[in-house]
């Protein structure tokens, strides 16, 4: 499809080796995209089975043990193989150098090694499926010490994946410090880069703690170290502290890049500068810092002391405020704009709405008295999925559609994509909204069986998976079958740097490093009062 004289990054070399040994950040980004896509499909399939099992109370299609394995597989694969590396490693790799005006990331080889480590970790993880773990993705002790399944392999896989994540984070941070084009000052940096920067900070500083925790868990199983085993004088709550010290910031590793994507999409389709650039940029950083201070809100009923519960509850509400600010900023970006409802824009709007619900239901869980009732029920499941799917996955899909012309140089069928969006949006809400009610009614999570009075809500939830499933398939079909013709360098008339070059971009991005002279979201006519 490339009839321009210059080669683009996709044509630059053919065959397996030209991809597998590439140091081109765009190709590495695309490889991540494919890999996480595959894991997303596997993990999503596990969730279809889980919901199917819940169509009726009692044993349906799988046994209790298989059910436990399925939710462990779904959770750990979605978290460690899809959503944590997901947006940051795929779109981060593809976009950061393009956006800051660099020819590549600062350590191109390290970038490739990170990808290989990701593959290695994923292989170990998949290898563990020979006797898949049934511990849940949280690996809580002493159950994970006790379980007869292959916990060691799966945690080893996560450990290796963690290193991949750390190295990618280091690479991005240093890239953004050292390789910004002349004139690309911090206050002109695209907000996706700000978000990626905050994400990378979290990856570098939070991941090692879960690394040592999982290493100690392995030691616990091999040698009986006893740190987390009450039978040996250890404390299982300490494991939870260490685990959530990583896993709460990890929630922001998952959501921040999606927030960055929304901050890119909204101005383009509203033809307006992003509202409150500084507020969004700094609230990303603020979230990156405060998110280390709230992990204990996952442990309000775990036997944590009352004092610490109260402290964590206070700080949890502190982290809610920057998030709320972001939502209003995105909203106000549309005010007096010229709004085009493209597929990417639809996903972004859905993101704002669903993420709002996800965030607001977080207020329930942060309130100590209410959390005592709602902890470990379906309410938590629904809340978390509203943030992770309604937030991250919808943001991810927005990115898939938004940068599609840039990545592949062609366009997709907007009409079909919008139908897919409607199905996914409806299906998602049908799955997870009933779960809020199930939760307040007291339906515990991770339950193979349930009481008959919950049947109708469970069935509704299961029907939702069928709708969303059709939506996914239609979306994949739409994206895999581009419409004829070329996209051109800038079909959306965006002003950011990655749209200033050919689509797909040439192998080295820029012939000559550009000099940036104006803010990135310079849309609209200048009638505004200068700050």
């Amino acid at each position, binding site marked *: 499809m490339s009839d321009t004289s210059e080669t683009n990054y996709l044509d630059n070399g053919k065959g397996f080796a030209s991809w597998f040994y590439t140091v081109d950040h765009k190709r590495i980004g695309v490889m991540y995209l494919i890999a996480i896509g595959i894991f997303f499909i596997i993990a999503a399939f596990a969730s279809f089975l889980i919901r199917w099992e819940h169509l009726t109370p009692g044993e349906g299609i799988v046994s209790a043990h298989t059910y436990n394995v399925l939710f462990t597989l779904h959770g750990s694969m979605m978290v460690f193989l899809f959503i944590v590396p997901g947006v940051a490693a795929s779109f981060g790799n593809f976009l950061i150098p393009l956006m800051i005006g660099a020819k590549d990331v600062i350590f191109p080889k390290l970038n490739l090694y990170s990808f290989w480590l990701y593959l290695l970790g994923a292989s170990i993880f998949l290898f563990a499926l020979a006797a898949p773990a049934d511990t849940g993705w949280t690996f809580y002790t002493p159950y994970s010490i006790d379980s007869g399944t292959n916990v060691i392999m799966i945690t080893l896989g996560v450990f290796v994946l963690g290193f991949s994540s750390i190295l990618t984070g280091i690479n991005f941070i*240093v890239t953004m410090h050292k390789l910004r084009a002349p004139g690309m000052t911090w206050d002109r940096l695209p907000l996706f880069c700000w978000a990626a920067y905050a994400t990378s900070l979290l990856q570098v500083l939070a991941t*090692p703690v879960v690394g040592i925790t999982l290493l100690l868990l392995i030691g616990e199983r091999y*040698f*009986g*170290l006893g*740190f987390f085993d009450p039978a040996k004088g250890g404390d299982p709550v*300490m494991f939870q502290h260490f685990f959530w010290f990583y896993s709460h910031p990890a929630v922001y590793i998952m959501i921040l890049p999606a927030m960055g994507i929304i901050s890119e999409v909204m101005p383009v389709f509203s033809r307006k500068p992003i509202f409150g650039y500084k507020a969004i940029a700094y609230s990303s950083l603020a979230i990156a810092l405060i998110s280390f201070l709230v992990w204990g809100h996952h442990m309000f009923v775990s036997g944590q002391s009352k004092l610490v519960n109260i402290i964590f509850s206070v700080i949890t509400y502190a982290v809610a405020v920057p998030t709320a600010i972001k939502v209003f900023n995105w909203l106000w970006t549309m005010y007096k704009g010229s709004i085009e409802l493209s597929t990417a824009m639809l996903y972004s709007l859905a993101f704002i709405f669903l993420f709002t619900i996800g965030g607001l239901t977080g207020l329930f869980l942060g309130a100590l008295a209410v959390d005592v009732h709602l902890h470990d029920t379906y309410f938590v499941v629904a809340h978390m999925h509203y943030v992770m799917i309604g937030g991250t996955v919808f943001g991810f899909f927005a990115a898939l559609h938004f940068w599609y012309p840039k990545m592949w140089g062609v366009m997709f069928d907007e009409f079909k994509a919008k139908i897919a969006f409607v199905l996914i949006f409806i299906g998602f809400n049908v799955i997870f909204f009933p779960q809020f009610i199930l939760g307040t009614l007291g339906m515990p999570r991770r339950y193979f069986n349930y009481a008959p009075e919950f049947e109708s809500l469970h069935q509704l939830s299961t029907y939702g998976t069928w709708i969303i499933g059709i939506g996914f398939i239609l979306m994949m079909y739409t994206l895999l079958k581009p419409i004829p013709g070329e996209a051109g360098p800038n079909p959306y008339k965006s002003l950011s740097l990655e749209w200033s070059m050919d689509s797909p971009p040439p192998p080295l991005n820029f012939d000559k*490093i550009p000099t940036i002279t104006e803010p990135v979201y310079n849309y609209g006519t200048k009638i505004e009062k200068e700050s």
Partner: protein
Amino acid sequence: MGIYDITTKIIKSIAYPSEMVPPITEEDDGHHHFDPETEHSSMKLGMWLFLATELLLFGGLFAAYAIYRAKYPEMFMNGSKSLDVVLGTVNTVILIFSSLTVAIAVKAIQENRIKLVKIMLWITIVCAAIFAVNKYFEYSYKFGKGIFPGTDIFYSIYFAATGVHMLHVFIGMAVLGVLLNKVYKGKYSKDNFTAIEVGGLYWHLVDLIWIYLFPLLYLVG
């Protein structure tokens, strides 16, 4: 908005030293290189970030130590007394000495004194090896007395912390070995010494961790 302006100032004061963005030099072998000054400062920044990671990796062990020491003071007292202070002290001296030799090597390569670099790196690697051998004797002595990881929480922390540290010593030896090999091949000079400096940083971290582990495990009995 006052708060944003203040934040801007803070962030600018931190971030702007690295504001000067370098040009990119010619592309000879298919992909490009950044100019040496950028590469030098980037690799150092990257290594410092990695050291931050390593520190937090040990952080979990330090946290476990702090908490269980407060919870089981008797056990830690007795366990600590049973460790061999002489061997521990010898290892401390060895490791600090090896830190010195690496620092000298980093200095020497900047003055193009290749021979001195070789000697210093050799000494460092030998020191690391002696450290490992001492640890081997220490471990086997413990095993002989029927003390294993899991005997009690103190010994679990002792074995876990020194074991993970030992792993870093081995990684450090491997890194220094590769560097030494490249020095023999003449790859480094006063214009190209970043790798040695960065490898040295890693070795200093191994020393830093030990500086804390030694008193916490062996001395405060």
